[in-house]
């Protein structure tokens, strides 16, 4: 029931939103819809672990062996919570943004993308998962192409085709697995039974799935679509892309790749971990060089996701716990960063760090909140990201799945230092120092921005100090998945 509601509410409200021809009403309607989803998500959380309301299994296309099967386990709960929390934050934070043309369509498309994202996190049937995986892409394509920056059409096109290639390869893998299920069904439990059946085929099947997820996360070297797309899309969409959509890639690996193809995951683990750490260092180094705020945050996102992917392949309980909580943390933190970028862009019409300076003198509220969000990005203790990263590092270091765990940990640690460099550098150049002509008349936060940033900072500090509820939520899922991943042929 609850999963169906989580998908249906944004879907129906989004479709209705196309017919609201007034921007103000559309904004209000979409905010209302997003709060409704948040309410349902919190309701679902309150129901505990084993309520029958947390799953639904409806017939869809029996001839193909696929059903509309959706369910909420611990990992699903946390990711749907992230989605449900993010969208109201995004809508409130970008309340003052103006969109040209038929702007009510913007809000409708955002709600449709929420429906698609929810569907990905809730699907318990492989073909349904594939459907939502693709469907999450279409509203984002139109959002970026209509309301993006100058080079939006090429950037979005590249993004779409890149992702589509990955998805199609994943489709081939899904069909292959389906053809080998004993009961000709796409249900996830049937796929779990395949661990005994598919032997050496796992070696190439792994790549069919992993390429799709690697493009989504993104993992070096399949990341080239990301900085351009993040830069060119409207900031609200960038928040959706980097806050929630990248988690689709991580989620895909944890739910659909690692437990179903454990031998392949183990065999290719070193290769993938190598790619991850190269990506982390590379992205951090490039971020240090960036002058454009958006691109800086984009590259920093690649580095953070790389660490999470590294921890997945470490196949330890600690690491996986870290991934679960860090997915939520990274979502909120990066949205916080994007809110600041959006603010700055709206006020000063520039994203170049070299053109800004001394904002703290004129906008102290903004400066304080941003510094806290940035410190969360660097994973300082007391922030939520510290909890996540500590668990991640712990997991990688104690990994028995690879013989290079020390190397990986050391290089990953290096990337943390690099992230401190570019984050603090950015804060110093943008907020501290002297004001220049552009920033001399900076205004401090408006009410809506204050509310969201305070909410985010509150979450950062709360989870940083008391992460137990979040960790408890995902404990069972982590156990199940690690057990499946440790299945040796």
């Amino acid at each position, binding site marked *: 029931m609850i999963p169906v509601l989580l998908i249906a509410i944004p879907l129906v409200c989004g479709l209705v939103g196309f017919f609201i021809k007034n921007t103000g009403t559309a904004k209000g309607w979409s905010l209302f819809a997003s709060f409704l989803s948040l309410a349902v998500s919190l309701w679902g959380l309150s129901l505990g672990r084993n309520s029958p309301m947390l799953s639904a299994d409806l017939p869809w296309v029996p001839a193909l062996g696929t059903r509309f099967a959706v369910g909420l386990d611990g990992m699903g709960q946390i990711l749907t919570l992230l989605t449900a929390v993010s969208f109201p934050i995004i809508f409130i934070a970008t309340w003052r943004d103006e969109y040209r043309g038929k702007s009510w369509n913007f809000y409708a498309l955002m709600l449709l993308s929420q429906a698609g994202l929810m569907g990905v996190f809730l699907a318990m049937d492989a073909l349904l998962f594939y459907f939502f995986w693709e469907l999450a892409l279409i509203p984002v394509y139109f959002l970026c192409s209509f309301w993006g920056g100058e080079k939006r059409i090429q950037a979005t096109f590249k993004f779409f085709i890149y992702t589509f290639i990955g998805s199609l390869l994943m*489709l081939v893998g899904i069909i292959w697995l389906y053809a080998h299920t004993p009961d000709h069904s796409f249900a996830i439990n049937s796929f779990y039974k395949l661990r005994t059946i598919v032997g050496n085929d796992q070696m190439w099947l792994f790549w069919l799935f992993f390429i799709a997820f690697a493009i989504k996360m993104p993992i070096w070297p399949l990341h080239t679509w990301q900085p351009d797309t993040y830069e060119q899309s409207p900031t609200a969409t960038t928040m959706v892309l980097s806050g929630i959509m990248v988690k689709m890639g991580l989620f895909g690996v944890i739910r659909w790749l690692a437990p179903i193809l454990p031998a392949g995951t183990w065999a290719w683990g070193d290769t993938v971990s190598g790619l991850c750490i190269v990506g982390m260092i590379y992205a951090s180094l490039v971020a240090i060089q960036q002058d454009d705020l958006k691109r800086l945050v984009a590259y920093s996102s690649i580095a953070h996701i790389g660490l999470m992917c590294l921890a997945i392949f470490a196949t330890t309980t600690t690491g996986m716990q870290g991934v679960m909580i860090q997915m939520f943390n990274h979502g909120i933190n990066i949205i916080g960063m994007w809110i600041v970028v959006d603010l700055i862009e709206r006020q000063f019409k520039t994203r170049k760090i070299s053109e800004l300076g001394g904002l703290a003198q004129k906008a102290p509220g903004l400066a304080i909140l941003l510094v806290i969000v940035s410190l969360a990005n660097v994973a300082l203790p007391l922030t939520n990201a510290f909890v996540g990263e500590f668990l991640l590092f712990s997991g990688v270091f104690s990994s028995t799945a690879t013989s290079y765990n020390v190397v990986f940990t050391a290089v990953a640690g290096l990337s943390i230092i690099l992230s401190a460099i570019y984050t603090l550098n950015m804060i110093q150049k943008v907020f501290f120092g002297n004001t220049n002509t552009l920033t001399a008349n900076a205004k401090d936060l408006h009410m809506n921005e204050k509310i969201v940033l305070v909410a985010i900072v509150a979450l950062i500090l709360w989870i940083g100090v008391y992460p137990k509820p979040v960790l408890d939520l995902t404990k069972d899922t982590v156990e199940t998945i690690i057990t499946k991943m440790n299945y040796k042929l």
Partner: protein
Amino acid sequence: MNAIIVSAIWGIVMMFTGIITEKGSTVKATAIVGLILLILVNYMDLTGHHLFAIDAHKMLFFDTFGLLANTILFCATLVYFLLSGSDIEKVAVKMPVAECFALIFFVLCGVSLVTTFNTLLMLFLGIEIISIPLYILTGSDKRNLKSNEAALKYFLMGSFSTGVMLLGIAFLFGASQNGTFFIDDLGIGKAAVSPLYIAGILLLLVSIGFKVSAAPFHFWTPDVYDGAPTVFTSFMATVVKAAFFIGFIRLFDEGFGDSQPRWQLFVAIITAATLFIGNVTAVFQQSVKRMLAYSSIAQAGFMLLALISLNGTAKEGILLYAAAYSLATIGIFAILIKMKDYTFEGFNGLARQQPLLAATCTIFLLSLAGIPLTAGFFAKYYMLSSVIATGHFLWLVIFAVLCAAVSVYYYFRVIQAMYFKEGDAQVADLGTGFKGLLVIVAALVLLLGIFPQGLLDKLTTMVYTW
């Protein structure tokens, strides 16, 4: 048998309609009535009521596969008549509309033969009955040089391929045990195949490859599709191509199914070439009409996947593909006919001027690209699924999927022109009936994409009575 006879008779009726009345709308109405009648009698055949007690001497076999294929193709033709029928008048000055409709009915007669044949001679007859009216329709814009060139090219290449097919048939006759044309007797005792038999199969493969525009026999397609009047290109690229494919599958499954390992690799290479050439060349086109011609070659490549696997999924899939592909392409061509400028720039800004047209065009393009929620997705799914189920040719599946990603590029170029570029798209006058019908067809494409169960039920029951 119902469909064959009724379509031939109605073709003659259409010719007389031309004498009786001059008004195009009356002729079109008669044609639509005839087509509905055709669908009805075909349905009666499906449910076992045969109107004509003619003994076909086993030369024709009216199984559910053939009759279902008929239904799908006739319904596609009905959509075609409703959407584009009135454009036939506008092809040329003093266009003999009734004769065009008559020719289309004769083509449908050939289609019914090709879907239900049981002997190679009937296949030949069906293919020729389809092709010859098409040569005429291609050249029907008599004052247009491109149309004349297209008709001559089509006629020469088509006749050549027919000659090749006859030689192949002769070889197969010679190679068969007791000298027979019946396709279910061709393969008997073919554990040790003779070179004559293989030569016959290859020649048939080449000639039918011509007809369905598989590479490397596709060179006539872009010029013919581009030169022919757009309204007839629409018919050729959809119903006719799908009909040839049904015949293709029928022949190779019944006739050469036993010797499949011999010719499978050859077909796989042809498929890969078709997918590659169709998709890559379409990327470089500047005219939407030519792009659609190359895209039809690429779609043919996907349909060839069914030929490689030839299992139950493949047969269901080819029917589903025929339905999805025909609906989407007929829709797109119907919109293309109304545009004044066939280049990509001609579509610039269409979303602002004609939002409904742009929206339905987008749905059709998404279906051709194989995006989930559209019928085209399930069609591609079936094709891929059928080959994966065989356990071999995985390289071909991955290649097909990469080519499908390439196809997204040129399909989305149209969407981009319509929505994201500024321009003044010139469109001919549209009636509300036309727009309403477009919405219905688009809704059908979406319905088949979300709830394909209705159609799939019928297809699955068919497979078990094959």
